[in-house]
C-alpha cells in the first residue's frame, strides 16, 4: 500500500467560532483510490472540516496539502481546478437546466470555455456528458428538466457533475442523506466502483452506518472537534470509546439507527 501516493494530507487543522472549538487539531491523510469515511455525532465538526477542505471555509491554523499543493486560502473554484469534486449534503444543481446541461456546464468550466460568448453549448462535449450520465445510471434522464428529478436521482446527477473535471479527490458530504435505504447502498456501491476504477480518493461523511461499514476502507471518528479514533471498520467498530459516544451498543444501535436514519 505504501507505493500508492498520498493524495491529501491534513495537519493540525483547527477552527473555532467564538469560544466553540468546531475543529481541534485534526490530522489525517488519504491515498489515491482509498475510500475514507468521516463519522461522528451531530455537531462533531464534520461539515466544518469538509468546508475547509474545499475552500468554503478558512481554518484558523493547520495545513491542507492536496497533491503537494497547499490549498489553505484558496477559493472553492480554485480547489476544484486542482482536481477536487464535491457533492453537498443538500444537493446543489441547476434546476432550470436539463440533466445533460447540468453536466455540460461543468464540462464547459473544465474546458475553460466560460467566457465563450458565441459558441453553442448544446453541442459542447455532448457525448462526454452522456458518458458521465451513463456512468451514474442517469443516461435515460439526460433530456429531463433537472427540477423534476426525484431526490435520489439528483444525488446521482450531482455525482456525475462532480466527476466532470476528472477529479483526483471526491468530497461527499452525507452523500446518501434523504434517500431511501436501498438507493443509499446502491449509490455508495456505484461511487466505490468508480473510485476504485479511476483510483479517485473519496472522503465522505455519513450517518448511515450500513453504508459506512460496507464501503469505507478506513474510518475517522470525530467528536467535539477532535479525532477520537481512526482505523479499519473492524477496529472502529470494536473501539469502546466510539461505541459509547456514537455507535451505541449491539442491537440497540442497530435498531435505533435504522429508525432514525436520515435525521
Amino acid at each position, binding site marked *: 500500500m505504501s507505493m500508492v501516493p498520498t493524495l491529501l494530507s491534513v495537519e493540525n487543522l483547527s477552527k473555532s467560532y467564538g469560544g466553540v472549538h468546531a475543529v481541534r487539531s485534526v490530522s489525517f491523510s488519504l491515498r489515491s483510490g482509498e475510500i475514507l469515511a468521516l463519522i461522528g455525532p451531530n455537531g462533531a465538526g464534520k461539515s466544518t472540516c469538509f468546508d475547509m477542505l*474545499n475552500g468554503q471555509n478558512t481554518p484558523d491554523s493547520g495545513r491542507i496539502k492536496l497533491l503537494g499543493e497547499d490549498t489553505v486560502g484558496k*477559493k*472553492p*473554484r480554485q480547489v*476544484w*481546478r486542482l482536481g477536487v469534486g*464535491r457533492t*453537498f449534503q*443538500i*444537493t*446543489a*444543481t*441547476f*434546476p*432550470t*437546466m*436539463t440533466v445533460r*446541461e447540468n453536466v*455540460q*456546464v*461543468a464540462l*464547459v*468550466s*473544465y474546458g475553460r*470555455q*466560460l*467566457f*465563450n*460568448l*458565441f*459558441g*453553442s*453549448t*448544446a453541442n*459542447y462535449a455532448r457525448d462526454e456528458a452522456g458518458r458521465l450520465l451513463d456512468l451514474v445510471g442517469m443516461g*435515460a*434522464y439526460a433530456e*429531463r*428538466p*433537472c*427540477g*423534476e*428529478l*426525484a*431526490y435520489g*436521482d*439528483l444525488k446521482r446527477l450531482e455525482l456525475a*457533475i462532480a466527476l*466532470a*473535471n476528472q477529479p483526483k479527490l471526491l468530497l461527499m458530504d452525507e452523500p446518501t442523506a*434523504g434517500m431511501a435505504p436501498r438507493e443509499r447502498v446502491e449509490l455508495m456501491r456505484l461511487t466505490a466502483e468508480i473510485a476504485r476504477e479511476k483510483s479517485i480518493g473519496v472522503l465522505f461523511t455519513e450517518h448511515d452506518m450500513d453504508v459506512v461499514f460496507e464501503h469505507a476502507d478506513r474510518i475517522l471518528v470525530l467528536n467535539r472537534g477532535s479525532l477520537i479514533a481512526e482505523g479499519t471498520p473492524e477496529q472502529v467498530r470494536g473501539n469502546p470509546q466510539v461505541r459509547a459516544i456514537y455507535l451505541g451498543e449491539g442491537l440497540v444501535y442497530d435498531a435505533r439507527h435504522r429508525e432514525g436514519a436520515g435525521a
Partner: protein
Amino acid sequence: MAFYFVQFLTGLASAASLFLVASGLSIIFGVTRIVNFAHGAFYMLGAYVAFTLTERFSGAVGFWGGIVLASLIVAVVGVIVEMVLLRRIYHAPELFQLLATFGLTLMVQDIVVLIWGPDDLLGRRAPGFKGAVDFFGQNIPSYDLFLIGLSPVVLGILWLLFQRTRWGVLVRAATQDRDMVAALGVNQKWLFTSVFALGVFLAALGGALQIPRDAVHHALDLRIIVDVFVVVVIGGLGSIIGAFVAAVLVSELNAFGILIFPKISIILVFLVMAVVLIVRPWGLFGKPEAAARRTPGLTVNPWRPLTSNERWLAISALAVAAMLPLLAGNYALTVGSEIAIFVIFAASLHFLMSVGGLASFGHAAYFGLGAYGVAFLAKAAGLPMIVSLLMGPLLGLLGAAIFGFFAVQLTGVYFAMLTLAFAQIVWSIAFQWVTVTGGDNGILGVWPEKWAAGPASFYWLSLGIAAIAVALLRVIVFSPFGFALRATRDSLLRSEAIGINGKRVQWTAFVIAGTVAGFAGALFAYLKGSVFPDSLGISLSVDALVMVLLGGVETVSGAVVGAIVFKALNIWLVSQTDLSKLVLGGFVVLIVVAFPKGIVGVLETIRNRRRSSSSKSSSPDSSLATSRIETAE
C-alpha cells in the same frame, strides 16, 4: 459658528420625517420581507389628507387631531391594500413585490391629482409653533425644535412597543423566523396586517407632519422613497435604530452637503450609501440575510434554441415589420422606431434579469449614458453619425463596468437598491452639471444625418439594430457563457464548486447588458433629436422592468413581445387619457397578480400542456412527484 449649529438643527428636523417613514418601511420589511415601494405614496397621501383635515378643523385641537386622524385614515387604506393585494404576493419573488407596489405608487399619483388638483398646496402653520427661536442672531423655527424632539420620542415608543408588549414579541419573533411563528399557531395574516398598518401609519404621520414646513405636491412620493431607500439601506433593512441613525446621517449630509459641495449635494448621500453597501452590505445595524431568494424561478422549464420553423417565423415577422413604411405614415413610423428602440432596451434588461437573475432597478442609467455619449460626440466633437452611434454606447459600457463591479457584489433587494442608487447618481450628474450636460434643458439638436433622417430610413435603421441586438443576446444565452451565467443564477454554491467565478461572470453580463442598453439610448437620442436627464430617470428604469415582466421573466424572448405591447399601449394611452399613470399602474398590479408569467410565459405554458398531453405515453416514468428539498430553503 452659530450658522453651522442652526444648519445642524435644520438637518435634525428634516431627519424626523425621514425617520418616521424609514422606520415604517423597515418594520414592514422585517416581518413581511416586502420592500414596500408604495411607502412614499402613503407618505404623500398622509400629507394630502392632513392638509384637508387641518383646513376643515380649526384650532389647535383641530390641527393636531387632524394630523393624527389623517395618519389613521391612511393606515386604514394601507390595511385594505394589504388585504386585497399584498396577501396575494407574499410568496412571489421580490421583483414582483417591488413592481406591484410600484404600480400602486403610479396609481396614487394620478388619484391624488384627481382629488386635490395638480397645484402645490400650502398648509397651515402648527398652532403653538408658529414663531422662531433666536440663537445668536440666527432664527430657528420653533416647529423644527418640536420635530427634533419628536423623533427620539417615537423611537422610544416603538422600542417599548417591541420590547414590552406581547404583540411586539410576536413581531420580533416573526422577523427572525416567520415560518416558525406560524408553526407555533400565531395567526400570521393578522400579524402581517397589523404590522403593515403600523408601518403605513408611521409613513402617513411623517407626511402629515411635513405640511407646516413644506408645500404638498404630487411628486412627493418619489422624492421621499429614494431618500428612504437610502436610509434603510445605510441603517440596515429591518432595524429601527438603524433607520434613526441613518435618517440623521442622511439629513445632515444633505444639510451640510449643500454648503460645502453645492454641485454634488445629491451625489454625496448616494456615495455614502454605495460605500456602506460595499463595506457592510446588510447596513450599519442590519444583520446579514441568509441565502437570498432566487429572483425568477417560478417554473423549471429548460430553455431551448428556436426550432427551424420558429426561426422562419421570427424572420417572417421581421420581414413584415420591415414592410411597415410601405403601409404607414410618418407618425406610425416614428412610433415604430421608438418601439424598436425599446425592444433593444428591454432585451438588454431581460438578459441581466432573467438570464443573470439580477433585477436592476436602475437600468436606464446605461440607456441614458448611451444617449449622452452620442450627444457629446455628435454635438461637442462634431463626429459623423455612424461614428457617434457606434462610439456613444461606449459611455454606457464604461458606466456599466464601473457600477456593475460594485453592484454584482450584492444580490436581491440590495442589488436592486444599489443599481437604483447608481442610476440616481448618474441622473444627478446630468441634472446638476449644467455646463456639460445642459442640466434640465438637456442637449438639443442631435439630428441624424441625411441618409437616416427620413422616418422610413430611421425606422429601418432602428429595426435592423434591434434585430441584431436581440439575435446577438439570444446567441449569448445559449453560448457557454450564457450557461455559466444561468448557473450562477440557479445555484451560486454549485457554480463555485465547479470552478465558475460567479462575480466575474455576472459582471461581464452587466457590462453586456449596459452596452446594449447604451445602443438603445444612442438611437433614442437621434430619434428625439435631443437628450434630457429623463432618459436616465427612475420611471424609465421601471418601464423597462414592466416590459420584461409583461413579456415573461422566465422566457427567452419575452422582452421583445413585452416591449412592443407595453410601448404601443403606453403611447396609445397617453394620447387617449389624462390618467395614463392610473391605468398603467393598475395594469402593472394586474399582471403581477393575475399573469406573473407574462404573455410569452402563458403561451408557452399552454403549448407545453398541449405537447405533454399528446405525448404522455412516451415519457420515461412517473417519478415526477418529487421531493425538492432545494426550493424549501
